[in-house]
């Protein structure tokens, strides 16, 4: 049960009471140190957050995070001993988890993943932590191996509430409409709600991320997380079973992960329900982790040093902003993947394999409709926000004025973000497009094969254009959400880099757009040739009649 804070040891609230021993982790605006608390003689971790790098509107979130960390109390949740400011920095004093994050342990000693016994203990404790957080009205929103820590007793601690939101605090409700988390681990509805301004997501999003984390623990890393998106799709199609997946997993484990990765959040189990799953039935105790994981593990300091010397700052110690920025480059379209329980990985879904031709027009219309929907949804979200504000007690009525002013501020901010988004989005879809292009080229080669094939591929290619557009639209939406995420982590000082990135993405985008144009034209030409040769299609496109009157004679 929860420890009473009255029984907690009071930790000193000034910097002079601590001796910094080592740096053990780094984020974009924070550093994590191993330190000694001098009066108590105990080892602690101190997360030093540079407040001057936090924009003013983030200060309230930082307050909530600090409060959350002192008010939570669960053996599997990393809480804070205390927090205080030291000049520009906020120091959060926490228990030191000597083994570091599971991500760091995986890359140091278990490159091909843990065995199932270890995974079961880790996941059970993580689900317990999630169950507690959810009961408390908190959504963690960034569950992944990098945020699950292990201490010297083999105890699992879920860390990093930098992006968590409380469902009970009305002022944070709007946060759930925004996007947070690390893209690959994100549930489809999280991506959707950020991109379309749809309904807010809730606790179930953490369960999805838990499923992805299970894959991470089982494979040592996320399958194909190291290849860019376009390549990953092609690879998955041609070589569906890379070597590492030959590992055998029990049925209970595969089933549990499958449940976590249920697309529909309503059907996905809650944390409390998941705890009762048979996979956790014969779970060993924490001592097993001490024996099988902690033994021979290089210390956190050594791991940090080794990585720093290799020119790679560990991204996954406690704080992960940097990793998130990095992660953006290898994001894929999760909503287009189905989890295959038997082969224990995601299998991509190709939209253009499912349906052919015929639906061109319908698709076009659908596209237009979707755009409209997006607009409506966006205003819907605004309205919800307004309503939430109206609920507030307001006896003078003057509050409304302020709200309006606030809203304007928010709107203005969003507008500028939007502008940026459009730029990035334009560039960002390229990867998807590349893979699409490849398909198209394949179609082209087929065309050279002979008369009959030409006809087929011509039609197929015509069908492909709207599909391509649909992919673009999809990835645009996702990209837009991701860019919001970048904005959350990139502060003013990184703007120059960001602009550079935007510039190069824009160039790339322009190049690919012209390529697509050429392909489209070629496709039209093929279509025309095909029609000339067969006489089919004329009926479907009566506007051609006027242009080619001589073709009218059968």
């Amino acid at each position, binding site marked *: 049960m*929860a*420890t*009473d*804070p*009255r029984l907690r040891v*009071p930790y000193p*609230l*000034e910097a002079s009471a601590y001796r910094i021993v080592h740096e053990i982790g780094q984020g974009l605006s924070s550093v994590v140190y191993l330190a000694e608390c001098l009066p108590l003689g105990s080892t602690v971790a101190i997360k030093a957050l540079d*407040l*001057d790098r936090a*924009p*003013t509107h983030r*200060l*309230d979130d*930082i*307050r909530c995070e*600090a*409060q959350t960390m*002192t*008010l939570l*109390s669960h053996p599997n949740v990393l809480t804070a001993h*205390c*927090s*205080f*400011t030291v*000049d*520009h920095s*906020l120091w959060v004093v926490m228990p030191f988890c000597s083994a570091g994050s599971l991500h760091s342990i995986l890359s140091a000693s278990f490159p091909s993943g843990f065995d199932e016994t270890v995974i079961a203990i880790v996941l059970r404790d993580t689900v317990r932590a999630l169950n507690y957080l*959810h009961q*408390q*009205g908190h959504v963690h929103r960034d569950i992944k191996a990098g945020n699950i820590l292990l201490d010297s007793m083999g105890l699992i601690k879920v860390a990093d509430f930098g992006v968590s939101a409380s469902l*009970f605090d009305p002022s944070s409700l709007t946060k759930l409409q925004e996007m947070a988390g690390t893209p690959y681990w994100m549930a489809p509805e999280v991506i959707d709600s950020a991109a379309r301004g749809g309904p807010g997501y809730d*606790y179930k999003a953490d369960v999805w991320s838990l499923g992805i984390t299970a894959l991470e623990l089982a494979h040592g890393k996320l399958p194909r997380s190291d290849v860019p998106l376009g390549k990953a799709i092609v690879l998955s199609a041609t070589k569906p079973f890379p070597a590492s997946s030959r590992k055998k997993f029990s049925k209970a484990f595969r089933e549990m992960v499958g449940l976590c990765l249920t697309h529909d959040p309503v059907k996905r189990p*809650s944390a409390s329900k998941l705890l009762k799953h048979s996979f956790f039935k014969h779970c060993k105790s924490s001592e097993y982790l001490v024996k099988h994981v902690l033994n021979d593990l290089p210390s956190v300091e050594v791991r940090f040093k080794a990585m720093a010397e290799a020119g790679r700052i560990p991204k996954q110690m406690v704080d992960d902003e940097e990793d998130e920025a990095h992660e953006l480059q290898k994001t894929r379209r999760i909503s287009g993947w189905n989890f295959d329980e038997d082969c224990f990985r995601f299998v991509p879904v190709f939209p253009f394999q499912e349906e052919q031709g015929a639906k061109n027009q319908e698709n076009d219309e659908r596209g237009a409709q979707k755009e409209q929907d997006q607009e409506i949804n966006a205003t819907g979200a605004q309205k919800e926000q307004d309503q939430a504000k109206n*609920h*507030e*007690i307001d*006896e*003078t009525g*003057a*509050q409304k*004025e*302020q709200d309006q002013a606030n809203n304007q501020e928010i709107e203005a901010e969003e507008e500028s973000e939007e502008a940026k988004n459009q730029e990035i989005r334009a560039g960002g879809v390229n990867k998807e497009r590349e893979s699409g292009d490849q398909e198209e080229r394949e179609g082209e080669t087929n065309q050279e094969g002979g008369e009959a094939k030409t006809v087929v591929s011509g039609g197929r290619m015509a069908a492909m254009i709207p599909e391509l557009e649909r992919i673009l639209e999809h990835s645009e939406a996702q990209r837009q959400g991701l860019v919001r995420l970048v904005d959350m982590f990139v*502060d*003013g*000082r990184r*703007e120059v880099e960001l602009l550079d990135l935007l510039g190069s993405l824009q160039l790339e985008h322009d190049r690919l757009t012209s390529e697509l144009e050429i392909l489209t034209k070629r496709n039209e030409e093929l279509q025309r040739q095909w029609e000339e040769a067969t006489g089919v299609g004329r009926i479907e496109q009566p506007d051609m009649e006027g242009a080619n009157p001589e073709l009218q004679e059968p």
Partner: protein
Amino acid sequence: MKGLFKSKPRTPAELVRQTRDLLVYVDVYWNSREAKKEEKMADLSKLIRELKSILYGSSESEPIAEACAQLTQEFFKDNTLRLLIICLPKMNLEARKDAAQVVANLQRQQVQSRLIASDYLEANKDLLDILIAGYENVDVALHYGAMLRECIRHQSIARYVLESEHMKKFFPYIQLPNFDIASDAMATFKELLTRHKSTVAEFLNKNYDWFFADYNSQLLESSNYITRRQAVKLLGDILLDRANVAIMVRYVSSKDNLRILMNLLRESSKNIQIEAFHVFKVFVANQNKPPEIVSILVANRSKLLRFFSDFKTDKEDEQFDQDKAQVVKEIAALEPRELP
């Protein structure tokens, strides 16, 4: 089979009555060596959690308006709120958090389109005294703080706190060493000074002298970075609010205030500089600048102009650039009113 022995579901009003009975018990027998104490505390925690799930709903069900109304009505019929606040330090952490959320939620519940919480608090204003003093007790500060911020959403309650002696206590609270508590006090202080416009203007007019003297010396000139940063931002919000025009005019006519803001402009933190600029510009834009303000600006003219030539925001900000251009123009055109 277990279901057979389950007691009938209790109505929200019954739950409130049971909670109150237990609170009375805890209040009276806390220091006695009563054997049943532990058990009663556990029951109490359970009841408070049940109240919370009625008000907030649970993962299975949304809150039901009728049940919430019944609960609220029963809650404020008697002295349940008082007992809950008084007994809070005796509860365990989880029960305290639940209790704070229950109290916060009740402030927004309407019974026959009336906020009866407001009526209750008006008749029991001493409860606010207890909540505010909570900032001095590490164990309850955050729970009381969360309740307090919800209570001052009622205008009459905010007025009571503003006019009380408690306002003076916020200055030290904001600088407490515990970041989570200090920032909570700051959030409450900000809420008090920005939410109910006319009440705030009235308060500032009446208490101008001591309030701004303390504000300047304790907050704007604090040795604590985060205090200075939040204080200068809040000052801008207060002075640039239309309801506070009279206060703004008075504030920007004082050369001591100008000196403090000019010092903040020289801070190493860009965030503080920018916020300070938003107040400084009002001193310059004032069309009826007192001679002493003019002479300070004239004496520092070249330094200020040099400063502003390099002074930029990290992100492009059109409004800021316009303001800055206007400030530079004004300063450049200043004529000393009295020749030395």
